[in-house]
């Protein structure tokens, strides 16, 4: 009989927690870009917005709303201190760039006063508009690098306030701690949004969560819906917009490893979701960050269409969204995907494409859409009269590269997307994954060390939302061959990339995961080397190695300890689930009781060991 302590805990891993970067992404992208800093998909963060309308020079505000700026909109009427700093920043900019636009003392006082008006004050003043010339100059400042930076500093301040006032106490609540990462995103988005709309209402929701009144995402959502009696109130519309953004976050977090948006999202997180947008091109570790950040932002501007687009790329399938005029030219925003290639563009026509792993800028008016007789579409880009094909899109979704849904997408038991192996299949300058990527991932049948209990499912079937957390962190289970490969990868990256042992472990872990998830690769590849910032792995070597798998060294090294723990936990959970499936199969063939079979297996020597 095996000693009980030799068996790993037979319980589901503790639901993992979102990182600070992910929570900042919820604030900035889901709440900010998706629900505040845009109107009908158009980015309005860098201009003086006004909730209301202006007719014949008369302003008609909505409620008590005044002028506002930002991705996380700051109402200057409610925050006159921001109106003062805005005018101060404008003056500094104007002195350098447009000395003739500098306001004199009276103008400066008047401008601050005009910008600081609440909706009630604007009405009391008969809807008087502010000086149109000054407003135009202020808008030009807000679109300049200095203005973008000023607005972004305000956004970052507000995002940090949400982290301090909302997410920090939220993280301590049972509801959040026991929620799946997907539900954590949803809860954070709903509560953060409520707080951003009204600190009174948002604080009330947070109090109720802390006191244990709410036990699910639905409870929290309904709580916001019930703050004001009736339907379609402003708290509800705000909640719904933020919840839509949360689904984009989850779709991005849960991307398939070979979805090109997987690396895109991970780079945005690693590069800091609150990065200064004027300095995106200064991140040496992430040279494509300008494309990646803009692409992510575009997805939140098109939050209604984005999940289907992201999931199409998970499958390596196709997706088309983009309105055209009568001549067939695109005239709005759009999202096109085919295989591992995609193009996104915003309502202003600025776009980004990743084709065969290469990023490029795209302008909407350069895109040419050709509808074929079989209803497929060819998308190409017209530059100076020369057309370059971008992609062939079959609306029926035929020829998907990956037949299975992403392994990490099921919210009830899946690990967060950060556990998805970071293997950019089409990294710039690298060969693409071979054609066999179109096949379903092979089912792995290696035995694991012990019986694993299935993740508990609640009475309502909603998954392990309220399960008792298991605090024990598990090491990664590996076969002896994987252990050898792990050591080989450690030595390789330490010697060739000069990595520390800690960082080398991260990369080696990703190497193991890559061999597990990449068709054609086994735990005994013939070739492995570090080239162009990647660990390149080939199963067999002929005259030249045909590479089957890649691990982006920098991306792997930048993972936090929490992300690594998540990743290992998800891998172990998958292994345990496979063991269960195997045991069920074995039990149907073998009359021996399941427990006895498991004990026998343990007694005969477990083939797995701990590595990290």
């Amino acid at each position, binding site marked *: 009989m095996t000693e009980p302590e030799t068996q790993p805990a037979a319980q589901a891993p503790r639901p993992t927690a979102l990182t600070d970067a992910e929570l900042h992404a919820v604030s900035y992208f889901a709440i900010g870009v998706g629900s505040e800093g845009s109107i009908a998909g158009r980015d309005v963060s860098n201009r003086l917005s006004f*909730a209301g309308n202006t007719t014949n020079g008369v302003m008609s505000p909505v*409620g008590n709303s005044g002028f506002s700026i930002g991705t996380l909109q700051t109402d200057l009427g409610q925050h006159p201190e921001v109106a003062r700093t805005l005018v101060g920043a404008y003056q500094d900019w104007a002195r350098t760039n447009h000395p003739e636009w500098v306001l004199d003392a009276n103008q400066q006082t008047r401008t601050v006063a005009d910008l600081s008006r609440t909706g009630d004050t604007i009405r009391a003043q008969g809807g008087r508009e502010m000086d149109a010339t000054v407003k135009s100059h202020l808008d030009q400042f807000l679109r300049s690098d200095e203005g973008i930076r000023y607005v972004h500093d305000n956004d970052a301040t507000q995002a940090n306030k949400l982290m301090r006032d909302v997410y920090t106490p939220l993280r301590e609540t049972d509801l959040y701690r026991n929620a799946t990462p997907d539900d954590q995103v949803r809860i954070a988005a709903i509560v953060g949004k409520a707080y951003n709309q009204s600190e009174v209402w948002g604080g009330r929701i947070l109090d109720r969560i802390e006191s244990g009144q709410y036990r699910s995402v639905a409870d929290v959502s309904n709580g916001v819906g019930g703050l004001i009696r009736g339907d379609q109130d402003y708290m509800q519309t705000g909640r719904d*917009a933020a919840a839509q953004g949360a689904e984009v976050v989850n779709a991005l977090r849960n991307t398939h490893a070979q979805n090109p948006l997987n690396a895109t999202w991970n780079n945005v997180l690693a590069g800091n979701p609150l990065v200064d947008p004027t300095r995106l091109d200064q991140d040496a570790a992430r040279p494509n960050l300008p494309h990646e950040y803009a692409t992510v932002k575009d997805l939140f501007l098109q939050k209604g269409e984005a999940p289907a687009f992201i999931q199409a790329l998970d499958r390596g399938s196709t997706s088309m969204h983009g309105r055209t005029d009568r001549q067939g030219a695109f005239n709005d925003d759009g999202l096109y995907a085919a295989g591992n290639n995609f193009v996104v563009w915003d309502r*202003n026509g600025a776009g980004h494409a990743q084709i065969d792993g290469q990023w490029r800028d795209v302008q909407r008016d350069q895109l040419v859409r050709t509808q074929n007789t079989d209803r497929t579409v060819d998308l190409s880009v017209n530059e100076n009269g020369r057309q370059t094909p971008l992609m062939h899109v079959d609306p029926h979704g035929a020829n998907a590269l990956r037949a299975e849904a992403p392994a990490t997408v099921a919210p009830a038991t899946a690990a967060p997307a950060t556990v998805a192996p970071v293997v950019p299949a089409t990294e710039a300058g690298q060969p693409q994954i071979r054609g066999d990527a179109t096949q379903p991932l092979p089912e792995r049948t290696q035995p694991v060390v012990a019986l694993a209990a299935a993740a508990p499912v609640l009475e309502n079937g909603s998954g392990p939302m309220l399960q008792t957390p298991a605090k024990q962190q598990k090491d990664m289970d590996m076969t002896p061959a994987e252990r050898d490969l792990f050591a080989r990868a450690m030595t390789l990256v330490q010697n060739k990339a000069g990595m520390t042992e800690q960082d080398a472990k991260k990369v080696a872990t990703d190497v193991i995961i890559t061999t597990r998830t990449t068709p054609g690769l086994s735990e005994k590849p013939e070739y492995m080397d570090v080239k162009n910032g990647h660990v390149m792995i080939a199963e067999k070597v002929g005259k030249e190695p045909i590479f089957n798998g890649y691990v982006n060294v920098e991306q792997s090294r930048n993972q936090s300890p929490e992300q690594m723990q998540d990743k290992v936990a998800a891998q172990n959970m998958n292994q345990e689930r496979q063991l269960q499936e195997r045991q069920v199969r074995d039990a149907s063939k073998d009359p021996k009781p399941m427990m006895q079979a498991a004990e026998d297996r343990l007694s005969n020597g477990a083939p797995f060991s701990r590595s990290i």
Partner: protein
Amino acid sequence: MIPPNVQTESLRSPTRLRLAFAVLALCMASACAQSPGPVAAAPSPDSAKATATFAGRWAYAQSCGWQHSAHLEFRATADGIRGAWSDGTRVGGESGELQGRLRDGKLFVRFCREAEGKAPGICPDFDIEKSYVVRKDRQLVWYREYGADGYQPYLTLHSAVAGADVPTDDNCPEDAAAP
């Protein structure tokens, strides 16, 4: 519950009238300043009928743009017309309680908003009268005070019956506006 006509009759008696004046004097001097007073608590049959024309929940919802939404809710109470309100967009807004007073077929409304702290206009302290509503067929038109021009139409609200959709305002010129 005392029928409205009994209350109205009783106010005409000299004793009750003196009492009413005494209460009114007290109210003008101090805490009751926020209350509509005993007259509102005892509506005439006409005013009761007028009150009924406003009673219920009224809503405005914009399906696009800033997704402006607002609601006004009126109910007749022993203290006069009371209710709740909200007004905002998906970015932010305000809500709270209201008090109504009928005058010339218009229901003049005072609001207080839910917020931290104590200040004029923050519940339970009501702001001064800056709005009124009138019935227009099956709709309610909300007027707000607008500088020296007096009152101007602000929103047209629809009766919000439980379980029925409120017609939405789908006119959003800002959606198509150039950047």
